[in-house]
């Protein structure tokens, strides 16, 4: 064949050779897929080039094509070993079905763009997207996490015709920080190193971009030791008339921003390869936020001058993905020798699929091209015409005059039939309770010790050491910050932003994540994550009827039928609860096959199936929001919602090694009306402080409120509405649908009247003693707030 492209012989070869081609070139295509490619090229009567094979592999990669979420799944639920329920499910369809049922006209753009977009007011929309960058972060934590946040910022810049990023979110899952070194398998970085590297990466990239990082969560579990999870999110604001974009026949393809090198080639397929010292460096990207910041500023200028008709980011799959996606309904012609390179010596296919950072692709009409290039030159940002979108229906790529790729867009984007998969889930597995007998309740001092142990645990303790490294003030939009109270010591349920300088309307952002429930039942994990995300934003003052959510799934080895079954059950939960809470999914992403193979033992370990739900809600007036800290002595403490014996997967059970149990089961028909009441009572100033009651249970919630306000109080556990009045359940059950609120003394009657019909109870009163007295059956536990604060803040050290 030609001088620059190599021919890949696939016509007439047998199955073994096909698989060998896929493996040798790190294509991650299975035999069925290779056969489809073989068939296509046989019909054309020629072999593909390396560039063509790479393009197909990239377009059909799990990362870009979502083969599992598009697959037809034959799903069986097994109960008590006999009761079977079979159904055919397509995960993506199920998620979209939920949105179709509830979206209304509040959603402007869902599941079609780089990010979901909801309506903020008449002039503006809010774009929100959360991505994962797990494999790169496990290998090179600093670079991996930095490029993770850099990538999702570009997603927002490429949403519609470009949104302005105003907030970053970060959610991480790590292994246990004090894991002894000898316990780590070869090739795995220590969790503490991963933790420090990832936080530093997000910090340095986000701070240098001038975007506040103000919302997140960190989970620690042994299951993440070999595969950490790094979720990075960005939220942006976009004029509604800039949401629509369309590539027009004849538009020029312009690549802007960074130069192209060998960074991140085959990043998507790299995940399943064990590390060794000779591994190619080309799979890890290192970010350069200064380049991206410059690009961001000039792009927004170009957007406002209407200089381009469409834009998308260059992320996984590089130019191949970006140009391919933009041109899929038209056709594209690209001249690769024009792409600005970092250094010489790249093969055409390498230029085409390189995942070098800080690049975006624009479709620019001829009449504005000159002005666009001039603008980018003025701002010293690279912008190069590399080809043209042409109505040919083909993807044609040239290098120095030689055609190195010619594929039908239709084959590339619609040529892959859905996979057929089998999945099963054992409903009862994991629910059986394993524990030694219950502790005697007489001696309350035991319980004090237990409370403080839970409070100082890795998963409950203050995230101050991480939060304070991020700039959460830049752009001056952050109203409720991640740390609240007089001393900035209390935790916030969510962040509240004021996107526009001339309007009091705001947005609240938060997240829900709890892989521990998922180990017992992923269905209720989905429900709890959705509810927690919603509860968090309502707790700071968002309207529960104007909230949208994002789903991000991270799962283990998906070829295992039980893992796939758990994922399917989780998606079913997402559907059910999203519909019941009337929450549309506006965007989402899945990262599958997060597992690790130990080279020496051959053992395969998957991460716990993890769902992150991120919520964004409208706050009608940011002056009418509340934080979680106790405000004033003499005010009443109420609990809203019912407590149940739902200790399965709770922080308390896990610390004390108790497995199984019943996980919290959300009750939307009771909780949604309750949330509407809370929202109204916050708006009218009756509620002075509100904190959602979740991880760690009632006692952790109360202590966090007391720490934030630097106040004490008396709380009577006997008053808590609960069917099981054992102290263990009252203190530590993580039942959903609960809020702890502070009500001003004079509003008692008003509050109780308004709450009629919902479960609530007066449980205590705030005082200035600096002590929290917990009364239980005529006995009491007294905890010094200062002591609690030291323990809570000392749990997670940098």
């Amino acid at each position: 064949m030609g001088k620059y492209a190599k021919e890949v012989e696939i016509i007439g070869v047998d199955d073994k050779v096909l698989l060998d081609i896929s493996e040798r070139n790190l294509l991650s295509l299975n035999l069925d897929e290779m056969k489809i490619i073989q068939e296509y090229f046989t019909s054309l009567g020629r072999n593909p080039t390396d560039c063509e094979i790479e393009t197909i592999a990239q377009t059909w990669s799990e990362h870009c094509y979502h083969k599992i979420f598009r697959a037809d799944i034959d799903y069986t639920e097994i109960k008590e070993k006999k009761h079977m329920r079979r159904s055919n499910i397509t995960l993506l369809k199920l998620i979209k079905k939920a949105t179709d049922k509830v979206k209304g006209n509040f959603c402007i753009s869902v599941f079609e763009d780089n990010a979901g977009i909801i309506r903020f007011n008449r002039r503006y929309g809010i774009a929100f997207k959360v991505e994962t960058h797990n494999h790169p972060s496990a290998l090179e934590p600093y670079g991996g996490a930095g490029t993770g946040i850099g990538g999702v910022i570009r997603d927002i810049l490429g949403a519609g015709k470009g949104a302005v990023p105003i907030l970053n979110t970060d959610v991480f899952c790590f292994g246990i920080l004090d894991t002894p070194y000898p316990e780590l398998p070869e090739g795995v970085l220590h969790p503490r190193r991963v933790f420090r590297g990832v936080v530093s990466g997000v910090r340095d990239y986000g701070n240098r971009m001038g975007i506040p990082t103000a919302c997140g969560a960190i989970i620690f579990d042994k299951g993440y030791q070999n595969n950490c999870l790094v979720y990075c999110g960005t939220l942006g604001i976009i004029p509604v008339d800039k949401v629509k974009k369309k590539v027009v026949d004849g538009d020029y393809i312009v690549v802007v921003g960074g130069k192209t090198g060998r960074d991140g080639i085959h990043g998507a397929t790299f995940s399943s390869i064990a590390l060794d010292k000779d591994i190619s460096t080309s799979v890890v990207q290192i970010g350069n936020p200064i380049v991206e910041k410059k690009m961001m500023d000039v792009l927004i200028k170009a957007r406002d001058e209407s200089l381009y008709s469409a834009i998308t980011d260059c992320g996984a799959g590089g130019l191949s993905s970006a140009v391919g996606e933009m041109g899929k309904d038209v056709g594209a012609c690209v001249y690769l020798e024009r792409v600005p390179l970092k250094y010489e010596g790249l093969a055409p296919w390498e230029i085409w699929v390189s995942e070098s950072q800080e690049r975006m692709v624009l479709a620019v009409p001829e009449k504005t091209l000159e002005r666009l290039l001039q603008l980018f030159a003025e701002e010293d940002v690279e912008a190069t015409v590399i080809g043209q979108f042409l109505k040919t229906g083909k993807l044609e790529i040239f290098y120095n005059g030689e055609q190195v790729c010619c594929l039908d867009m239709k084959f590339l984007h619609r040529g892959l039939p859905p996979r057929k998969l089998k999945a099963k889930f054992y409903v009862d597995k994991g629910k059986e309770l394993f524990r030694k007998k219950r502790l005697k309740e007489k001696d309350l001092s035991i319980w004090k010790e237990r409370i403080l142990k839970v409070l100082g645990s890795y998963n409950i303790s203050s995230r101050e050491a991480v939060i304070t490294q991020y700039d959460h003030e830049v752009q001056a939009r952050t109203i409720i910050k991640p740390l609240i109270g007089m001393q900035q010591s209390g935790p916030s349920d969510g962040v509240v932003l004021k996107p526009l300088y001339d309007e009091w309307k705001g947005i609240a952002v938060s997240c829900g994540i709890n892989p521990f429930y998922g180990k017992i039942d992923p269905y209720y994990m989905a429900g709890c994550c959705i509810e927690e995300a919603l509860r968090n934003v309502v707790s700071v003052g968002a309207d529960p009827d104007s909230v949208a959510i994002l789903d991000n799934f991270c799962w283990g080895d998906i070829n295992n039928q039980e893992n796939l079954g758990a994922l399917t059950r989780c998606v079913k939960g997402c559907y059910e609860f999203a519909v019941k809470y009337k929450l549309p999914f506006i965007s989402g992403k899945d990262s599958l096959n997060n597992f690790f193979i130990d080279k020496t033992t051959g053992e395969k370990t998957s991460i716990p199936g993890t769902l992150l739900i991120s919520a964004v809600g409208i706050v009608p007036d940011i002056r009418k929001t509340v934080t979680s800290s106790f405000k004033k002595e003499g005010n009443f403490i109420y609990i809203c919602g019912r407590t149940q014996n739902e200790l399965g997967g709770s922080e308390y059970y896990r610390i004390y090694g108790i497995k199984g149990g019943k996980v919290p089961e959300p009750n939307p028909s009771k909780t949604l009306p309750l949330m509407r009441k809370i929202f109204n009572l916050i708006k009218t100033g009756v509620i002075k402080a509100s904190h959602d009651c979740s991880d760690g249970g009632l006692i952790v919630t109360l202590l966090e409120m007391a720490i934030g306000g630097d106040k004490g109080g008396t709380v009577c556990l006997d008053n808590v509405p609960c069917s099981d009045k054992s102290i263990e359940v009252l203190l530590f059950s993580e039942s959903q649908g609960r809020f702890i609120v502070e009500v001003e003394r004079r509003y008692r009657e008003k509050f109780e009247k308004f709450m009629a019909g919902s479960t609530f109870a007066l449980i205590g009163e705030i005082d200035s003693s600096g002590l929290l007295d917990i009364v239980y059956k005529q006995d009491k536990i007294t905890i010094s707030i200062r002591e609690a604060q030291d323990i809570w803040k000392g749990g997670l050290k940098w």
Partner: protein
Amino acid sequence: MVKIYKIEVCNKKGIPDAFGLDVMKNIRETGIVKVKDVTTSDLYCFQGDISLEDIKRIADDVLLDKVIQEYIIREEDRGDFEDKGYGIVVDVFYKKGVTDAVAETVAVAVKDAGIKKDVKISTGKRYYIKGELTKKEIELICEKVLANRLVQDYVIH
């Protein structure tokens, strides 16, 4: 004529090295508690047809924080370093082909400073480690704390 220069920038005597202290903490966490002190400096390697005067200007005007830092310029082929009496010196550099964002920014800054020469720039970090350590322990420190072999190489002097 193509020349190679290495500029080493470090804190002046008496100015605490916060990064070094952090590194020491990380080393101790691996179980190697015999480490007594760690100080660090930034390395900038320039390769190209460039004069010593230009290199001095780059060091003074681009790289140095004059209040707290000082620098030493060396010609690379000698490969020497200042013996601070620490015994162990480790250099960490990015591997070829890995994006070196600091070097890219230095290149822009050098141009902005009016030095229009075509030079290749790479950056790295130098660690001075005090403590009686075995060779194996030093290698462990390099692997577990100082460098990620996936993107970086290290040299123990």
